[in-house]
């Protein structure tokens, strides 16, 4: 009993170091993972699709896909998994940790870049390092997908306008024959500079069972 416990604790310790969560949070997330996977070792896409609350989400597919995207595992691989284990699950979740008072400015920068990278990967579905117009259009279409036909027509126009804005901000002097291939990561960073990702893109990792205020106590 004791040995098993220490083993889990060690595992949690490893994970805590890798992902930056606290032991408490990892434990809770593990519980959730086990619930989602039906006590299996891995989750597949179907398991995530079964979550009822996600049904109303217009970008459900992208979110689920993000969990299985190898690029989000910080390991420079490309492609996607069929199923993921708890460690991968945690890695993806770690993108949503908030900064703390102790986070230095460089760490904040790094955090912001990491979160932006996550978003970028979600848009760049063919993993070629740029978001093309088609891909961007798809993004906007999905966002507006719950709004009926009005959404579809406007989506194209909005995506075009947005793309144009990115291009004109980043490459202001293009010749008439030049073609703007797509949004690179640097341009993406530039265009979303004002949003302060590190303060916005986070959730509170509360205790799953009892909604008490455990957040902010992360040891990282």
């Amino acid at each position: 009993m004791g040995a098993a416990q220490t083993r889990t604790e060690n595992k949690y310790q490893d994970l805590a170091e890798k992902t930056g969560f606290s032991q408490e949070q990892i434990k809770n997330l593990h519980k959730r993972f086990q619930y989602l996977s039906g006590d299996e070792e891995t989750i597949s896409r179907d398991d995530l699709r079964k979550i009822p609350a996600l049904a109303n989400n217009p970008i459900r597919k992208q979110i689920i896909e993000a969990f299985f995207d190898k690029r989000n595992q910080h390991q420079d691989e490309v492609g996607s998994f069929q199923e993921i284990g708890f460690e991968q699950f945690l890695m993806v979740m770690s993108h949503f940790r908030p900064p703390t008072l102790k986070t230095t400015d460089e760490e904040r920068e790094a955090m912001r870049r990491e979160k932006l990278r996550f978003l970028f990967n979600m848009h760049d579905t063919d993993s070629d390092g740029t978001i093309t117009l088609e891909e961007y259009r798809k993004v906007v279409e999905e966002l507006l997908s719950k709004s009926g036909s009005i959404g579809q027509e406007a989506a194209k126009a909005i995506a075009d306008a947005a793309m144009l804005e990115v291009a004109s901000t980043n490459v202001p002097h293009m010749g008439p024959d030049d073609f703007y291939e797509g949004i690179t990561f640097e341009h993406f960073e530039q265009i979303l500079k004002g949003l302060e990702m590190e303060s916005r893109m986070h959730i509170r990792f509360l205790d799953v069972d009892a909604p008490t205020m455990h957040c902010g106590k992360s040891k990282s």
Partner: protein
Amino acid sequence: MFYQVDVKSDAEVQVVESGLCWLTGVWYVTLACPCFFPVLSSSRFHLIPRLSNIVPESCLLITVGLLVGGLIRLAGEKVPPVLNSHLFFLCLLPPIILDAGYFLPIRPFMENLGTILMFAVVGTVWNSFFIGGLLYAVCQITPAPSSLHQLELLPCLLFGSIISAEIHINELLHILVFGESLLNDAVTVVLYHLFEEYSGVGTVTVLDGVLGVISFLVVSLGGVLVGAIYGILAAFTSRFTSHIRVIEPLFVFVYSYMAYLSAEMFHLSGIMALIACGAVMRPYVEANISHKSHTTIKYFLKMWSSVSETLIFIFLGVATVDGDHSWNWTFVTVTVILCLVARVIGVVGLTYVINKFRIVKLTTKDQFIIAYGGLRGAIAFSLGFLLDRDVFPKRDLFLTAIITVIFFTVFVQGMTIKPLVELLAVKKKQEAKRSINEEIHTQFLDHLLTGIEDICGHYGHHHWKDKLNRFNKKYIKKCLIAGERSKEPQLIAFYHKMEMKQAIELVESGGGVKLPSAMPSTVSMQNIQPKKPPPAKPVERALPQLPKGREEEIRKILRSNLQRTRQRLRSYNRHTLVADPYEDGFGDLLIKKQKMIELEKKIKEMNNYLTVPAAPPDSPTMCRARLASGRDTDFKPAQQKENKICQDPQSYSVKPSSGDVPTIQVDLASPQSPDSVNLLDELKRADQQKQDEDQGLMMRPPSREGRANKQGEVESSKEQQKLMRCLSDPGPSADEEEEDEPFLP
């Protein structure tokens, strides 16, 4: 009250007379002050521009008030007691609060609501008790006698504040200070009434304390409820005002004021009611009313609130000069010091507690700004003024102290906060407008975070927000928003707004003036669109002659539309409320877009003849739309590989473009001359019965201006673009003669 004829005794007559004098006096001061203040301020500010940087407005206002009061005193007249409770609470306060409530940025406010409430409620109570207690202690030591209740009133009054955001700090701090001062007012007023009653009673028991807390809750939440109800009523009313656009703003003001009055009638917090009313009605009302009404509301609110604030400060000055003061050094200085100390301790202590619950913590710098910047005291002063002399024998003492503190905060802190902010390098508010990318990603992020929360399995902040949004969309919007707009998703609404803003900017900027938000850019739609396979004759890019039949067709279309436009122009007269082409169109915009698509198909057939590679910068085609009269032509037909339709040397004066040239240089005509017209828009308007008189809808704006091709029609498929470039039409001209000029030779 002023016209009782059966007044017999002298005393009563005097009362009547002084009543009349009072009324006159009020009007005198009220009207005189704002009248000569703008003169003062504009002359002073223009003459000494640095002054306005150093000295905040409130200081100047108080100074003016002092001057006026001094003048009146010198003139030997008794200064009318201008600031009585009716005037203040019924006339001066509501506009300020409504302005704040209506333009409250809901999202950051809600996100930080817990923090704001903590600061406002707990902070104020803490301040009152701390200062009250200490002053009492101090007064025990010194010879001046006083009573506990009276003292407690003092500090809670002192931290009410009127919002005038003169410093531009980042959004978080701004909303914290702003929100706190808003709620602070409400809390202050509630506490004031509470304490007033306690003082009357004499002794305070624990039961009274508990009752006090309960009554506080009832008062504030009741006020919010009343406000929300009126807000919904207003939104509902605005749904049906499409035929009486002229009085739309009236509804907003009337309902808000009624909310205020109703709440006050039931002894609930009118301020909270007003804030709730404004905040609740705004999203729905703005979706329903016309653009002009929206502008009207905005400017009226700003105007009224500025005037009110001005008046309050001026009265402050006047009353200072006139008021009966009893100056007690100890009392006053101790008060000032204690205020500061209490504020600092309060902020630090509260922040410590709050940071345990916040994700984005408040740093020391933030705390300092909150403590330092959150003090201003016009409401405080007014409330102090209203203390009844009989109940509070020490009233004058209080008043003097209050005035001192207010002067201190306004002058000293007002002047030093700006340099301090710079010194501390507090992050400034982003001045840039929201871009479409940011909007897209904000929404995307919302959904993403909601999704992640769902996967994690707990019902957090985003989950409930999402639920509320969906509830809003499904039921509430349907009731409160008229017509097509109710189904419009937020992103599209934002996009339309942005289009419209740019369209208006362009029209207003007239001929070729750079837009303020301009960023030099040569990027156009075609840089983004993936290259289409080259047309039938790739080698020879010269455009073949358009067969006569086609030309004729094009000419006919254009002419018929021009004619319709002209007819509409002639029937305009001064009394018709000119229908804004930008208003009322959004819902219909989508229907129009359908027609656009059909049109597109038609044009596609013509497209074969209009292959347009990137035109050289100063091609007359590009400059086609500019029809400024009296500019030199520098027509270069040789370079043109475009269609020959565009060769029209006589009709157009084309300005040669200067140095740094954008790809598509389509300058707008100057205001006197006809604006260019987007062909497709013209056709679109063929069905619309309204037209603005100086119409020229957006052409492609100069790409130089950065956000090219995004307003007007954004259906910028390549074909349409080319067509528009080549066939851009001189549009209806203000100058009658030009109208009959044929477009095509």
